[in-house]
């Protein structure tokens, strides 16, 4: 869908049949239209090439991501498998994970299972950032890579290795020396993920 297509869709805001169902048929992501408008303007400001999609260079221009230890992984999360361009739909979809969870929003008219910003889906998003090879397991090496990114270069490999071993041993319940998604969820059950993984921007 090109830029013009999106503009048409956004014009739904002023259309007469403004009901929620129609809106959600057009956007199967749980964002209100004011949020979508804001995201769209942000998308537009990031898109220097004006071609309706973002490339990796556009993301790397963001100063906050350049100094972030997890910068590369976050950028990768916006690009679907094997592609080099992120369109607005993908952009929105990724960011929709970070919408705060609302108790009173039941989303009964959504037919597609759980909303993107549910606790499980938020955790799945984080899990996928660890699990690069998408085998649904965080292996010791994947964990080591993330640890190395977070900790910097001054710490020896042995120390990181023992931390990684300890981490896996703590979380691993089925003995496969990897952290599966269910083990990941279990380990984080005491952490307030709903608050930690929500941005006020999408409030």
């Amino acid at each position, binding site marked *: 869908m090109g830029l013009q297509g999106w503009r048409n869709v956004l014009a739904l805001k002023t259309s007469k049949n403004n009901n929620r169902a129609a809106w959600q048929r057009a956007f199967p992501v749980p964002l209100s239209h004011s949020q979508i408008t804001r995201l769209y303007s*942000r998308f537009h400001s990031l898109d220097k090439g004006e071609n309706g999609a973002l490339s990796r260079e556009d993301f790397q221009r963001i100063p906050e991501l350049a100094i972030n230890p997890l910068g590369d992984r976050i950028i990768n999360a916006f690009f679907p498998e094997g592609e080099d361009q992120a369109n607005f739909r993908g952009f929105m979809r990724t960011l929709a994970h970070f919408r705060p969870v609302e108790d009173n929003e039941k989303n009964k008219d959504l037919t597609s299972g759980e909303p993107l910003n549910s606790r499980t889906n938020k955790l799945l998003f984080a899990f996928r950032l660890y699990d690069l090879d998408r085998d649904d397991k965080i292996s010791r090496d994947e964990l080591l890579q993330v640890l190395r990114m*977070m900790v910097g270069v001054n710490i020896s490999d042995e120390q990181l290795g023992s931390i990684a071993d300890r981490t896996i041993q703590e979380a691993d319940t089925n003995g496969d020396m990897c952290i599966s998604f269910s083990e990941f969820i279990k380990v984080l059950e005491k952490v307030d993920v709903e608050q930690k993984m929500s941005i006020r921007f999408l409030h």
Partner: protein
Amino acid sequence: LSLSGLLEKKRSAGISLEFKFCGFFVCESEGLTVKMKKRMKMLLLLGFCCGMVFGDQNRSDPHDQRVFPVLSINYDYVQMPFEVSLWILLASLMKLGFHLLPVLSGVVPESCLLIVVGLLVGGLIRVMGKNPPVLDSQLFFLCLLPPIILDAGYFLPIRPFTENAGTILTFAVLGTLWNVFFMGAVLYGACRLEAGRLASVDLLSCLLFGSIVSAVDPVAVLAVFEEIHINELLHILVFGESLLNDAVTVVLYHLFEEFAHAGEVTVGDVFLGVVCFFVVALGGVLVGGVYGVLAAFTSRFTSHTRVIEPLFVFLYSYMAYLSAEVFHLSGIMALIACGVVMRPYVEANISHKSYTTIKYFLKMWSSVSETLIFIFLGVSTVAGPHAWNWTFVSITIVLCLLSRVLGVVGLTYIINKYRMVKLSGKDQFIVAYGGLRGAIAFSLAFLLSSDDFPMKDMFLTAIITVIFFTVFVQGMTIRPLVDLLAVKKRKQSKCSINEEIHTQFLEHLLAGIEGVCGHYGHHHWRHKLNRFNKRYIKRCLIGGERSQEPQLISFYNKMELKQALMLLESNSSANLSAGVTAAIPRQRSRKTLNISKEREEEIRKILRGNLQKTRQRVRHTHTHTHTDTHRHTHTHTVTHTLSHTHTHTLSHRHTHTHTHTLTY
């Protein structure tokens, strides 16, 4: 076997008796060699001779000098320290006693029992005819309160506090202001309507009374909330509010006192009052911050004098409190700021033993202080001059509850618009119900001068009644109410490296996402603060190599140390040797080792730590076999990860820097 006793015996019976007595004693004592027994006999003989000399002297000239006072009483010399120690001993014994009666401590919170004890002690003293001591305000504010606040501030959980800072500040400032003015106004109206004795109470006095009574008390909140184990969010909301509303209370108290003294209020004065609030609050925080930085800086150089490290922490904090009190700034906020600023740096610098010492001393002092405060409250109730007035007291109690509920509900409605995790009705109820009043209100009322406030006694009585009501009624019923409403309790979580890693991971992730959105939110600023901290501040304040240590590593080290200590304490050496042999064939026989998996991992860690320095090869082979089994899973993926693991095992020492360029 005292010398005086010997002398007495000597006078009554012959020397032979004493010899026999001493001889008996010497022979009976175990473990003494013959030589030692002989020596003791010589010493005793010497003693007898001296005694005889003295005795002879006494006997020879009884008329020239009075009898040498063998046993005399000089109580005045030790009176002050003796009485202080006696009170503290009483308080500690009471605490001990409560925990021996589990039935009682399960139903009634400790603070109630302590007040009852205080009442009994006060009654006892009064029955004995003396005047029971009243809780001296200076003693309270300078000696009893600081340890509790320091303990609270030093161990304040920073993350929940900063996440809810907006809510806490709103409750503390706006909530307290609302309480003060609502109570003052309605009380004034009631006094006007009542006439009679209450007619002389003017608006200013009512407002002052309101400002004293409205403040939620940290001591009482701590005492009650500690026992109900409520979830972290509610705990930090009520507790944070009780700490931060001190600034408001101090300003309003001094303001109204000044106005009452001056007799006239202008708009300019009100404006100055608002300015004063900011000065008091921010000034207090600044003073605390300065002392905190000084303490952190000092702790950098204490590596050779580890013994006095805790002393620095205590002294700097106390000085911060006193310095703030000199300028009428908020001492509580200074103390909290000092503790919060000082803690991460001091903990990185001091030894583990000093850390334990600080922790236990703070807990001990704050516990004793709390106990003493409640006992003294009880005693002061018996002692103090009372002027009971049914109307005033009952209206006060009703108003306290009403204004608190209205304030909380109203503010939550506004706050929920800005919060991500909204406060439910249950949460609001607990926050409202947890607004306990305590000894600070009493002490502030006690400080009032009787000239400006002729109704001081009535105020005191009303405040004591409110305190009793909140502590007894609210304190006792909050636990069953928490259970009834099924409020979430605090999750008992032992520290987990997983949680730490993943929490940090999420923080980085969120900071990045906020960058993508272009939104300078919470995570962005926290990220920036962390970077500033790491780059500049840690270098100054943390000595040695630990300034470069990432937070994750220090967390991990602390955890390991704790586990190793636990292991040493709990396990006997026999178990340890059995576990060592079982540790090695780990990969193969998984099922049989499941029971001691935890322990065997600890043992491996300790072994690893020991062997790391001396024999690198053992460690080396360990990693080699480890990645060997993993190589199979990696053959199907991109080749660069395969080579990464390959170089990692074979020459991890030499290509230390190289491996990193590969992954990036």
